């Protein structure tokens, strides 16, 4: 299996390289970040260039009236999207994690651009449905580009919240004091401030030892005391974290900060939950974020319990391959290896709707380190600190575009201060020359999972005359892929109608019917009522054998009809 995947990945890359020369209907270069208008324009061009493969839909408006775009990729000539396994991909639920949008956009572009160029992509697009929402937090991502900004702003939905309990909403956020279009950091001279200039690099500050005199106190983000309460920046925009506002095991803000007033209270959450409910064919979802270089699965909290073993095996299959498709990324469990979260999208999809999914954390700081080879310096005490490395990286790789040197400023409330620090787009957002590889590798994991949506086939095992004019018909329904037709949780929690296997034919007289529990020991679980209609599900890389005992002879059609795994049919003679 492993070899096969390596080969597949290799051939994919080769093909991608071969195709470089060919013409694209829509040209999008993945060497920069696109603002909301540009992303919207790209989606519209893709939709216009591929009318029979795409549908562009606004799922609704955000708090500030922007459209939440969903691009569906489905070949309508090969059937309705609802009859095919669906893959859902979204990004940037935290408005400051902007590169997630590029990954989604690339995935969409790649599937469409390569449709006529790479056979495998052609087949995937013809047999699966893709639902891509490049930006969930449209408002905050748009403002990340438009407003004077810092990295810290923009995780929230644009829902006003009284963070400092004074009855006023969002009245004292950061301000661009020096009018340079960026919110940087403030520091002030202070002998007891806890920080001093790094002797190795004057741009950097390090903590002082308890017996040393300090030089600086750090004052956080640029800003005034806008409301005259004596505090600075104590009530900025929000905070409502849309990735804590989904429905499963939602907890109020005093338990889960950023939860919002009630589940799905943010407009995008409501719009997206309505959308995914309307697409029960979704088998797997990706939600892209940007912290840590991780492939994360749930459970995110103790309240979600532990996941059933058979589902964990499916997760592990994708997680372990994912770590190779994305070198350096780690496959982890959110609630155990990171921190507890309530009301996140991933848990909603899995525990509420029984849909597998990963959170893709795109960026990891090792990417902007300035070191020869990680292993060699692991124990080297003389190795430069992370911050110094980042400065060196900035100096010699990013050509000094990432950091603004400290500059004096006369603050109306604080007196003389200095403003400077790492600029927006430099923390957890990779330099633009790294975008393409990030996009392609992550899209490749999406494609890999898409390849493994349930692929069902039916075959006749036997029609055997068992005497007295009775015949035993046995068929086998097989799934050649890793994703089961329904997750264990979906079955256990009765979330969907199960897969239906029916038999019909003129004059068909059924004596009994049921699922063959053990074909070698001849054990059958007969169905007492309506044996012509059997409800079941097909496991990961597994099968279901079904048997009917019928009277006489004739022709019959056996149909398989699944919510997530499509429809099949088989005609037999008995």
């Amino acid at each position, binding site marked *: 299996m492993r070899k096969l995947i390596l080969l597949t990945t290799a051939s994919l890359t080769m093909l991608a390289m071969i195709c470089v020369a060919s013409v694209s209907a829509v040209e999008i270069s993945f060497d920069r970040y696109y603002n909301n208008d540009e992303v919207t324009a790209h989606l519209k061009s893709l939709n216009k260039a591929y009318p029979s493969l795409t549908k562009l839909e606004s799922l609704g408006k955000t708090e500030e009236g922007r459209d939440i775009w969903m691009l569906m990729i489905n070949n309508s000539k090969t059937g309705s999207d609802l009859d095919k396994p669906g893959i859902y991909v979204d990004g940037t639920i935290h408005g400051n994690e902007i590169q997630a949008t590029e990954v989604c956009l690339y995935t969409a572009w790649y599937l469409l651009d390569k449709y006529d160029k790479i056979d495998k992509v052609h087949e995937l697009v013809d047999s699966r449905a893709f639902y891509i929402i490049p930006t969930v937090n449209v408002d905050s991502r748009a403002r990340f580009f438009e407003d004077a900004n810092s990295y810290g702003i923009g995780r929230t939905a644009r829902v006003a919240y*009284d963070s400092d*309990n*004074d*009855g006023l909403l969002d009245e004292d956020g950061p301000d661009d004091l020096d009018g340079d279009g960026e919110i940087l950091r403030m520091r002030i001279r202070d002998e007891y401030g806890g920080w001093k200039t790094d002797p190795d690099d004057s741009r950097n500050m390090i903590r002082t030892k308890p017996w040393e005199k300090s030089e600086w106190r750090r004052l956080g983000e640029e800003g005034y005391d806008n*409301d*005259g*309460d*004596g505090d600075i920046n104590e009530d900025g925009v929000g905070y409502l974290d849309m990735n804590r506002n*989904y*429905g*499963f*095991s*939602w*907890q*109020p*803000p*005093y*338990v*889960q*900060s950023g939860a919002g*007033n*009630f*589940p*799905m*209270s943010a407009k995008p959450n409501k719009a997206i939950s309505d959308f995914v409910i309307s697409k029960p064919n979704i088998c797997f979802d990706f939600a892209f974020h940007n912290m840590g270089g991780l492939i994360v699965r749930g459970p995110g*909290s*103790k*309240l979600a319990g532990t996941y059933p073993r058979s589902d964990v095996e499916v997760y592990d299959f994708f997680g372990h391959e994912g770590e190779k498709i994305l070198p350096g990324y780690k496959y982890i469990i959110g*609630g155990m290896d990171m*921190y*507890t979260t309530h009301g996140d999208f991933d848990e*909603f999809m899995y*525990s*509420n709707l029984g849909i597998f999914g990963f959170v893709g954390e795109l960026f990891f700081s090792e990417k902007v380190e300035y070191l020869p080879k990680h292993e060699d310096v692991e124990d080297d005490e003389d190795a430069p600190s992370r911050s110094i490395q980042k400065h060196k990286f900035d100096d010699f790789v990013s050509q000094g575009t990432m950091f603004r040197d400290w500059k004096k400023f006369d603050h109306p409330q604080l007196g003389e201060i200095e403003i400077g620090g790492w600029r927006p787009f430099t923390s957890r957002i990779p330099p633009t020359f790294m975008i393409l590889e990030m996009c392609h590798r992550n899209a490749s994991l999406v494609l890999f999972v898409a390849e493994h949506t349930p692929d069902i086939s039916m075959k006749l095992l036997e029609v055997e005359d068992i005497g007295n004019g009775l015949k035993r018909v046995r068929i086998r329904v097989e799934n050649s892929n890793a994703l089961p037709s329904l997750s264990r949780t979906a079955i256990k*929690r*009765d979330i*969907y*109608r*199960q897969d*239906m296997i029916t038999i019909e034919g003129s004059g068909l007289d059924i004596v009994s019917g049921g699922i063959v529990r053990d074909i070698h020991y001849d054990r059958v679980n007969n169905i*007492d*009522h*309506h044996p012509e*209609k059997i*409800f079941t599900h097909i496991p990961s890389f597994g099968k279901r054998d079904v048997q009917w005992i019928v009277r006489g002879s004739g022709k019959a059609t056996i149909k398989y009809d699944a919510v997530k795994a499509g429809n099949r049919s088989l005609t037999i003679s008995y």
Partner: protein
Amino acid sequence: MTQRPTLFLCATLLACALLMGSAIHAGGYKNPEAISKAVKNIASSNGTVAKLHDLGKTAGGRDLLMLELGAKNNSGPAILLVANMEGNSPTGSEAALKLAELLTSEWKDDLSSNRWYIMPLGNPDGYARFFDSPLYESFVNDRSVNADKDDAFDEDGPDDLNGDGYITMMRQLHPEGRWLKVEDNPVLMRRAKRDEGEKGEYRLMVEGLDNDGDGSFNEDGSGGVNPGWNFPHRFRHYRSTNGLWAASELESRAVLTFAYDHPEIAMFIGFGRQNTLAAVSTGSKRGAGKGSYKLPSWMAENTGANPDQMYPIGEIVQMARDAFGNPGLTEDRVLQWLGAGAKLSPDKIDVSYLKEITERYKTFIKDAGFDSERLDAPKFRGGSIDEWAYYQFGVPAFSVDFWTVPIIEKEEEETDSTEITPAKIEEMSNEDFIALGAEKIDSLLKEAGVEKFTAEKLVTLLNEEKMSTKRIAKMLKSKMKDDEDSGADEDEQTLYDYNEKAFVPWTEYDHPTYGKVEIGGQVPYSDLAPDYAIVDSLVSGQLPFLRDLVKLLPKVEIGEVKIEKKGKDIWKVECWITNVGFLPYPTYQGKRSRRPIPAVVELEHGSATILEGDKILSAGLLPGTGGNKKVTWLLQGKVGTSITIDLKGFSAGKDKRTISLKEGGA
């Protein structure tokens, strides 16, 4: 058992219900359409004080209406009242309408001090089922749910086979039967006690057919979700009638949105089946902050704690404060890190206020003549609006039911007037009881089979006030009940004693699938809806307590203000921000949930400058009945400079005081 009835009114009500032995039907009660009409009517005929909020339409196309009542210039605290959110409280909706009528007539003056948001029917679809024929007890909305996950929706509901207008039960002698008839009772059934060697005879099923021939009966009826179980405190997943997630339903979402859009709401009142005025809901022994926790690996690393050991929360908070050098780290924040979830019991200081209110309610009920013994109101299910209002919305929340099945004392118990019954003991003072003498007490205990106590011990405990006659009565009663236990469900027996017509006698029926069965049992809604004839007296008699309740709302004021000269043009201003209401502002749980916002004090200092002190500051939590916070400023300004203290109480009123800077001013 308490002696009653004390009032003529009450006696009449009981007699009326008893003598008529009324059959159960919705007759008289307003259906959702009529309620909607009545609400619109009140709104349109009281234009100056009333406003109608249309909160949308349900899946069944019914109105979700919120009636706002309040004088135009009234900016006082508001009360959110939602009735019949679960769809199972006919008296609740009637009471809400009655209250709206009273507030727009006899009690109109109340509208100048408080604003009321009254939703007489929170679950119109669910309640509409009360008016269905045949009558079937179900409170879910009209959202279509494929309850049995087959290939059809709502295809197999119950059927009224015997055509009596009620969906009751079917019983059949069957090898799998687990039920027996209750001896000496023609209608009640009870479970066989297998562990006592009893074998069951009957199986019980809901009256109906297997409409879709799948072998299950009535497994997928029409609807839906109960929005009254769909609120986000203690919401339970994976029960189709609760909804997929909290606030998934139009009805619950509409109320939640409305509530958060109205920060002036200071109190919640629910008219449903629960009653927290009769007994404070103490919640669960579990929940965040109770018991011990293991630290997640990152916390263990930072604090040096053993990741495999359980620590009590207090100790963990201390470790975290030390490790992160943050003495202000709150327990709630640490609980969040521990993934401990939500609070499941009310704050104990809040409870002390609520307990006082229950005492006042008891007195009121007694004086009003509504204290006759009746079945206890049920406890909250998870996902109720009432619990959400306290735990998440942060306001004092009260739930009122207006009726449960009255407990009718059996006549034979009263035959011998000299006999000492538990009911008589309950009414006795400690001294009266002791005066019965040791011999008599011992014989009472022996008769009832109480072995734990002797007369001597009881007398000692009574003298030390560690025992009460009430508890003795309860103990004797429960022992005696064991002896007489027919095995019947207590609530069913009580209902039967109250109204025999609440049960359909078992009659034979030839069932197409099962063959011979009998159809009978409890009439739907018979324990939820009293005869309509008594409803007006029930609600009119109990509603006045709400006026008392509203008077307990917190109210913030600027109390004493002291000015002291500290030098030329230097003034020390001291001011006491005081809560003159009975209830704390906010509640202790409200402080935790950061809602409502504590009072804010702002100093408009004019030409004076502030040398010390904050221009704007929060008063924080102000305990009830005189709880206060002292605010101090040091100002520089000329004699006679005028300054203004502006107090915003949000949902606890507001106050403003202008003073001039001078010796002994204010």
